[in-house]
């Protein structure tokens, strides 16, 4: 094992930047098993190294001093953590020398993600975790320049604001819903995870992935990185260990933002696959099988499915007359459909209904208009003004329940209700991986609460007060009896939906259970196929 490590180290030393995150998961773990004394020793050695590296010494010491204080406070905590860890896992008692080498590499590997995390949690004393050992040098080396990660995190300011908000009040009426949670401390809790995983988690918090398809793909990509970097402790079976890790990762992601049904399904598929792996195979073989499966999910369940849905959607556009299609907010799949329809010279116009506080529709209108598609933009309260002219209503589903109800963006149900009253056809688009065997009758039982501050931050509402009443809700946190509720999803009952289009074809909302059964069977077959394919 030591040999392995030193080999890897050599590799890294030659190409530290190209493979920054390789083996970090493991390294962090090994870092964990250090005792306090070892750490102290390490730190001293580190300082020497730093001096050798001729870094700005003064600033280092300044940074180091307070850190050490914090460290001492944390010692107890860490020891506890370590004990737990040691109970769980066979302790890697590795030679300090190699560890030291590792650590310097970790510095490189973790530098960027660390920086970004610190940006987010400024002034957070608890920042210093296991990795704090290496921070001083990384700070002086890298953090000052704009890093790749920083550029990719436009929402980090929002996150900061979010944390200032303080505790979120409970909503008595809807207490059964998961309350909007503060997200501080997440990073400390899950610091041992792979940096790609952590990175994605933070991006999710910052709402970079609004569409559940992109979120799913991003998660699977991150998992691919993680799995390829994952090393199995000796005498342990890969799938057991991996399953445990996967559970942790999923838990972390779910804390970042609750999973939609589609994601749940996808993750379940992956977990099932991992647990059913043939343990007799070599770890590399198993990994390649998992990789195959992950690729299969992205390709087959999402990309191919979308393509076939788009193809089927083309049949909905009438050739005789111009269609006026009503949609709500920004939905990626619908955008793709409209793009395709435009390329096929279909005549249509899109009514984009929008709603506060996210105003996704504005972006949608801009993108569609840039594609040359004529758009009408209105708020959800203005839909009734246009509904009599609308010819079809398109809905992008977040998930489809087995009683035929469709979970989608908040506001969907009222639009479909209006459409049904005016006898306008409502068409739902959904990949089958979003079909769920759950049943729900109203939107309150299973929903997600967004950041309530967004409602208060609404710019138009602030302007309206004109000086005196500027931002009427500026201090809503102080008022005991005022609560802001920002629901994310909506449940549209089965009777308001005329058709669901999935990759299996066009189905009425009632026959969702059939599709679920079919796709489950298909999955099982597929599972066997992959196993056979790779076994042979």
């Amino acid at each position, binding site marked *: 094992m030591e040999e392995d490590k030193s080999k890897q180290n050599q590799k890294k030393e030659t190409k530290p930047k190209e493979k920054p995150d390789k083996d970090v998961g493991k390294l962090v773990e090994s870092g964990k098993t250090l005792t306090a004394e070892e750490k102290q020793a390490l730190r001293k050695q580190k300082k020497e190294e730093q001096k050798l590296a001729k870094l700005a010494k003064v600033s280092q010491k300044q940074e180091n001093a307070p850190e050490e204080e914090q460290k001492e406070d944390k010692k107890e905590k860490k020891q506890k953590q370590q004990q737990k860890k040691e109970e769980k896992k066979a302790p890697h008692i590795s030679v300090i020398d190699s560890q030291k080498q590792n650590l310097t590499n970790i510095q490189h590997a973790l530098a960027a993600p660390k920086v970004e995390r610190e940006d987010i949690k400024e002034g957070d004393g608890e920042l210093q975790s296991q990795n704090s050992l290496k921070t001083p040098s990384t700070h002086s080396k890298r953090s000052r320049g704009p890093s790749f990660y920083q550029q990719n995190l436009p929402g980090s300011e929002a996150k900061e604001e979010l944390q200032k908000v303080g505790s979120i009040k409970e909503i*008595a*009426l*809807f207490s059964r819903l998961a309350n909007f949670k503060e997200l501080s401390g997440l990073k400390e809790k899950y610091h041992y995870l792979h940096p790609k995983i952590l990175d994605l988690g933070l991006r999710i918090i910052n709402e970079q992935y609004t569409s559940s398809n992109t979120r799913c793909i991003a998660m699977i990509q991150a998992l691919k990185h993680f799995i390829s970097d994952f090393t199995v402790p000796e005498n342990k079976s890969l799938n057991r260990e991996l399953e445990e890790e996967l559970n942790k990762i999923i838990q972390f992601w779910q804390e970042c933002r609750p999973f939609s049904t589609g994601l749940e399904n996808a993750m379940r598929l992956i977990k099932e696959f991992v647990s059913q792996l043939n343990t007799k195979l070599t770890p590399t073989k198993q990994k390649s099988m998992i990789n195959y499966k992950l690729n299969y999910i992205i390709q087959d369940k999402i990309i191919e499915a979308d393509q076939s849905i788009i193809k089927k959607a083309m049949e909905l556009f009438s050739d005789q007359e111009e269609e006026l299609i009503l949609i709500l907010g920004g939905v990626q799949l619908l955008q793709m459909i409209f793009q395709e329809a435009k390329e096929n010279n279909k005549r249509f116009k899109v009514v984009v209904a*929008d*709603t*506060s*506080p996210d105003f996704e529709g*504005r972006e949608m*209108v*801009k993108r*569609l*208009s*840039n594609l*040359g598609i*004529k*758009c*009408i*933009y*209105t*708020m*959800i*309260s*203005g*839909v*009734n*003004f*246009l509904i009599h002219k609308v010819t079809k209503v398109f809905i992008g589903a977040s998930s489809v329940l087995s009683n035929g109800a469709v979970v989608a963006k*908040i*506001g969907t*149900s*009222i639009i479909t*209700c*209006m459409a049904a*009253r005016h006898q306008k056809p409502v068409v739902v688009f959904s990949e089958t991986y979003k079909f769920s065997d759950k049943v729900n009758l*109203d*939107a*309150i039982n299973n*929903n997600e609460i967004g950041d309530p501050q967004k*409602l*208060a931050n*609404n710019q*138009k*509402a602030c302007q*309206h*007060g004109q000086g005196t*009443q500027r931002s*009427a*809700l500026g201090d*809503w946190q102080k*008022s*005991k*009896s*005022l*609560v*802001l*509720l*920002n*629901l994310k*999803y*909506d449940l549209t009952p089965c009777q308001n939906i005329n058709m669901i289009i999935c990759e299996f074809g066009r189905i009425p909302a009632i026959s969702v259970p059939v599709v679920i059964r079919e796709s489950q069977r298909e999955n099982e077959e597929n599972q066997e196929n992959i196993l056979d394919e790779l076994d042979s």
Partner: protein
Amino acid sequence: MSSARLSRVDDLVEKIKRRQISSSHEYALLTSKIFKDLIEQSKWADARQLFIQARKIGKKLIVADKMNFTIGNVVKRVYHIIREECKALKISLKEQNPIRMDSLKSITLRGARTNIDNMENSLDQIVEEDDEVEDLNNPSPNISTIKSNRQSQLNLGNSESKRGSAQNLIQNINSQLKNSLIQSINLMRDDIESVHETIEDQAREHIHSNDVILTYGRSTILNSFFKEAANEIFFEVLVCESAPSYLGHQTAKELSSYNISTTLIPDSSVYALMSRVDKVIISTHSIMANGGLVTHSGAYIICQAAKEHSVPVYVIGASYKMTPLYPFDFLTFNELLSPQEIFTLEENDVKENIEVIVPAYDYVPPEFISLYITNMGGQTPKYIYRVFTEFYSQDDIYDLDDENENEDVDQINTQ
């Protein structure tokens, strides 16, 4: 017509045009004040002249903002009051001294046309609907009336002794009319002033303990309604943001300051939360004659969701919001707001592909509404047209848009 009053009218017209006042209660009071002053202070020779003056002011006010129904409603109520008082006065005059009237008639027969004749005519013209409509459509008789009126006034100087008694009688009638008019207008003003109290008093009847109530927009009357109920019982209020005005934010803030448990929700969550709502209580811009509402945008989706979940919808509306007009769809009475309210174009946007529609008002059909809470108690939408007959005369409802009438009034003034 005194210039001071004219300027006050113009002032109000200006305010209406700029929409400086948000509360329709205030509009109602201001409008009624103008008519009160008109009756009290201005010099009018007979009822007809008064009516013409009133119409002129009324028209000015209504045209200022056709969607501000409150003003039109108050104006039409004033017309109705003038008509009713004239009718009552004529009846009472005939009852009191039929002989004297007869004798007056005999006097008038001698002269070509006298004041008394005109007086009676003017009462008649206002009271008798058919006559009046005819008159309004044919300006000539009116003008001749006024002309003869003036001639007779000139004649009066010559033969004062003869017609002294007649002159007295005219003054008598005029002051009688003035008194009764002032009384009725004051009654109406009291009625308007007290709407808040009378509606608040009903709060306890309609809000029960632990109710979950959904509302939207902003209304002083609704806020005091909730405040009144919150004194005694606990209930929760969900307030819709009401985009694009976001007045719901202010409502939420105010309600929470009364210690009412308030939750602010975006408009889109209405349907999702409706299954937990016990009743919808909203205020309105106007109550229409068919029992429906023309009100600020956002009400329709709420009422639709309520209907879907069989949640009762209560509408709070003072009597001055009852508008004797019939809407049939969204387009009958509506206007579009500036797109800037919700959307800002950026430089690289393809402008010709984007259309932004922001309707200001919603039409809610009567079948969506369970009950009106007015200052005359609870009313059902089916039956609310009955209330309208108490307030408005049939003739005043539509003829305001009549172009002929406008000319007619102008011609009268030039002479």
